[in-house]
């Protein structure tokens, strides 16, 4: 019987380890595939040039800039709104009916498919508010789409600040706002950064909502205002892989574009890790 028990133990352990390894394997294969396919096409001209001859030659500079602008818009809209709603939910409506309604709304919003957000953006920003097919319509749509992610990670970070610290602050005569501003928010910052990066990365990788709100197949210039149309990296990959005149010939372009997108997102993540570490070191429990 003893042996049997040990055998079970081994089997279960192997199963768990196998699953964990599978994740690593998936990442390695994915990276290897994209790097090997796209590296040869990567060049200064590819990164800084305009696309030529229906995207089959030249660079992807407008797509990089477009995605960068989208990330900036999402950052400046989704983060403040997300953090403020999270504060409201944790600090003001923790146990009330209102709070529960908010929580449920956030969870449900998180489950809505991105194409539906695209339709929402088309209806509200493009048509109703008259922003047209533009950077701002797409950026606002992506901001709404990433809000639930931003709110729930900020909410968790804020709720994880020990209540004993809040008590200490109140007991010294701090008001609720002072307690939030001096203690809760600073201590929750590492978690908020994580949510911020996750949200922006997610927005950077989305394709479907962009198609309904203003992404262009090919532009020889950069968007000159919020109301201009734009190119974006993920849509560029999609377009080149499905619609281009010669799918096989442009394959390196597809890989290289995917690689740039990946590097952009990984770079953001790295930045977030550095920021998070700095703040963690500053406030050590």
């Amino acid at each position, binding site marked *: 019987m003893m042996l049997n028990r040990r055998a079970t133990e081994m089997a279960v352990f192997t199963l768990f380890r196998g699953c964990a390894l599978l994740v690593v394997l998936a990442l390695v294969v994915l990276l290897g595939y994209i790097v090997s396919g796209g590296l040869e096409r990567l060049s200064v001209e590819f990164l800084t040039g305009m696309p030529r001859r229906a995207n089959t030659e030249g660079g992807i500079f407008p797509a990089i800039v477009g995605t960068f602008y989208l990330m900036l818009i999402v950052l400046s809209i989704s983060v403040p709104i997300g953090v403020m709603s999270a504060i409201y939910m944790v600090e003001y409506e*923790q*146990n*009330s009916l209102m709070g529960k309604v908010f929580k449920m709304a956030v969870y449900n919003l998180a489950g809505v498919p991105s194409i539906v957000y695209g339709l929402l953006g088309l209806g509200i920003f493009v048509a109703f508010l008259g922003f047209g097919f533009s950077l701002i319509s797409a950026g606002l749509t992506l901001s709404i789409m990433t809000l639930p992610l931003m709110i729930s990670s900020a909410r968790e970070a804020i709720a994880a600040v*020990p209540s*004993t*610290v*809040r*008590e*200490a*602050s*109140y*007991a*010294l*005569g*701090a*008001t609720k706002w*002072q307690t939030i501003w*001096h*203690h809760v928010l600073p*201590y929750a910052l590492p978690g908020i950064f994580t949510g911020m990066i996750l949200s922006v990365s997610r927005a950077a990788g989305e394709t479907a909502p962009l198609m309904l709100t203003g992404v262009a197949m090919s532009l020889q210039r950069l968007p000159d205002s919020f109301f201009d149309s734009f190119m974006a990296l993920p849509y560029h990959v999609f377009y080149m892989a499905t619609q281009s005149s010669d799918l096989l010939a442009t394959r390196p372009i597809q890989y290289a574009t995917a690689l740039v997108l990946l590097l952009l997102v990984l770079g953001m993540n790295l930045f977030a890790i550095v920021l998070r570490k700095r703040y963690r070191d500053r*406030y*050590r*429990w």
Partner: protein
Amino acid sequence: MTIAIRTDDLHVYFDKNHALKGVSMDIEMNQVTAVIGPSGCGKSTFIRCINRMNDLIPGCTVKGKVLVDGMDINDDDVDVVDVRRRIGMVFQKPNPFPKSIYENVAYGPRLHGVVETGNGKGRRRKHTKRELDEIVEHSLRRAALWDEVKDRMDKSGTSLSGGQQQRLCIARTLAVDPEIILFDEPCSALDPIATAKIEDLLVDLKKDYTVVIVTHNMQQAARISDRTAFFYLGDLIEMGDTKQIFERPQKEFTEQYITGRMG
């Protein structure tokens, strides 16, 4: 003796749970008053009424009067911030802010600033760096922590040992210059040596402050307090001089509890 705090028919409800059932008590100035009783008897709830910390608990209702200097702190026109500045509190688990030792102590004074009364009007201004330094040093000295931390004021408060953290919390409370300090089982997370230091400190503090301490440790109450109140199931059973409570309790419940036959 002057009365520092008087409660009159104080009731506390947590939703439907009647946690404190009409407590009327006088707490005298510049004395250590111990509040004892078995777990769940309402002793913490009671002292949290005195600086209105119960306000923070959803579903908590307080009825009755808490008079400090003759003024009911639950009155509508009383500023809760002012109440908590005048009535400090030290908690069960040491809870320093994850900031430097200096910032921990300076936080309270920074919040409130200095009130200057010139030509009849109160004006609020920030402390100068020098004033803050003085308050921090004075408070840390008063909390018997200065010598241990004076060379590492910029280290995090959380890097100290448990007993030092608790003295840091005391210094932080002293820095806002309260009249009354409430201690909610301040030694329950500490070892005997750290506990002894805090006890000495409490006895010393009563010269300048009114001290109320909740403790589940009866020897502690006997050692440091002048008066003792015994709570049981939300009622104040008996209150008197500590010596009398421990040597000649008047109520049977009290006797059973202090002789260890109950609780």
